């Protein structure tokens, strides 16, 4: 059973990383800025999940905090970019 | 005189307890103190507070949304995998007249819409009367409107207004 668990861990991790690859590819080809922003957002979420995988593998909670931080602030970059695209400046008067 | 945001305080204290993962009295006290301090400190920049009328309705809404999320995930997965090749998928915008006004209700609606794959919040008219969604698989707009209005909006108004 633990074999299944380990397989599941490895598999999920691989999935997430592959997902990151897709996102990176999208990020590279674009074609437009908003695509890249979206890809970055996705990249962050996948990174979060990868971290959770690591955490489960080592059965420690230390990676939880990193995941938490990504969940909390992974979007900041995205919205900053989006706002830049939308308004031309990140912070308006 | 602005009301104190009890909801926020409680939420923060809960969060603190979850984070630290211990419920010792000292910890509780510390968490509560922190929450109060932060709430008061930032009360100026959060001028309006939500107030839940019907918590039970909120619970109902939650289950409803969960179900929809499951369903739409399945649908979108099919689309991505191209299992719907026989039927051509056409995405499109749909305008939905809104009755709900409370900003938090709107925010919740936004969260719901966003977290159900297949629908994205595109635009809200400046007078918050018309909501524009982008739907991945738009079969008939009217059905979409009804879903939003009856499945979510009524409950939201029930909860927040």
């Amino acid at each position: 059973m633990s074999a299944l668990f380990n397989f599941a861990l490895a598999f999920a991790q691989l999935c997430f990383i592959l997902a990151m690859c897709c996102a990176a590819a999208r990020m590279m080809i674009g074609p437009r800025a908003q695509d890249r922003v979206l890809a970055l957002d996705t990249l962050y979420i996948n990174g979060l999940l990868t971290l959770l995988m690591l955490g489960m593998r080592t059965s420690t909670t230390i990676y939880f905090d990193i995941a938490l931080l990504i969940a909390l602030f992974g979007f900041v970059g995205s919205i900053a970019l989006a706002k830049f695209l939308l308004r031309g400046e990140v912070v308006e008067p | 005189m602005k009301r104190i945001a009890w909801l926020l305080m409680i939420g923060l204290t809960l969060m603190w307890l979850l984070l630290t993962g211990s419920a010792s009295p000292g910890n509780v006290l510390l968490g509560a103190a922190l929450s109060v301090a932060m709430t008061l400190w930032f009360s100026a920049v959060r001028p309006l507070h939500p107030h839940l009328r019907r918590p039970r309705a909120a619970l109902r809404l939650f289950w409803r949304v969960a179900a929809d999320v499951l369903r739409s995930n399945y649908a979108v997965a099919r689309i991505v995998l191209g299992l719907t090749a026989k039927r051509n998928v056409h995405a499109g915008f749909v305008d939905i007249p809104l009755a709900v006004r409370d900003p938090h209700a709107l925010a919740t609606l936004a969260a719901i819409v966003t977290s159900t794959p297949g629908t994205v919040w595109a635009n809200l008219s400046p007078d918050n009367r018309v909501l524009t969604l982008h739907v991945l698989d738009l079969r008939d707009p009217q059905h979409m409107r009804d879903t939003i209005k009856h499945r979510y909006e009524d409950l939201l108004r029930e909860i927040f207004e």
Partner: protein
Amino acid sequence: MSADMLPPWLLLPVSLLLIFGGLLTLLGSLGLLRMKTFYQRMHPPSMGNTMGAGCVLIASMLVSSGLAGRPVVHEVLIAVFIVTTSPITAMLLMGAAVHREASQREKREP
């Protein structure tokens, strides 16, 4: 102790959840890669955001609860945060997309 000496009745659902979540997330990103227009691309990743993340979080919750021997639910926070923050991104992105499409269009035929 490490995670794989948890009782099987716990490990089985965990594994299934993991595999399922992994697949969903991968699908989502694939969709991001395969869809034609930007608006279509907006949708698939949210699968990862919701179900994928949800599954993995539940799994992780189970594991850590099993390890700790008591319910550990702080992964809920992550879910809450994701749900709270992703709308902002989505709205702004859509807004930006609409706006830029418009400006590009008017640039194309003034």
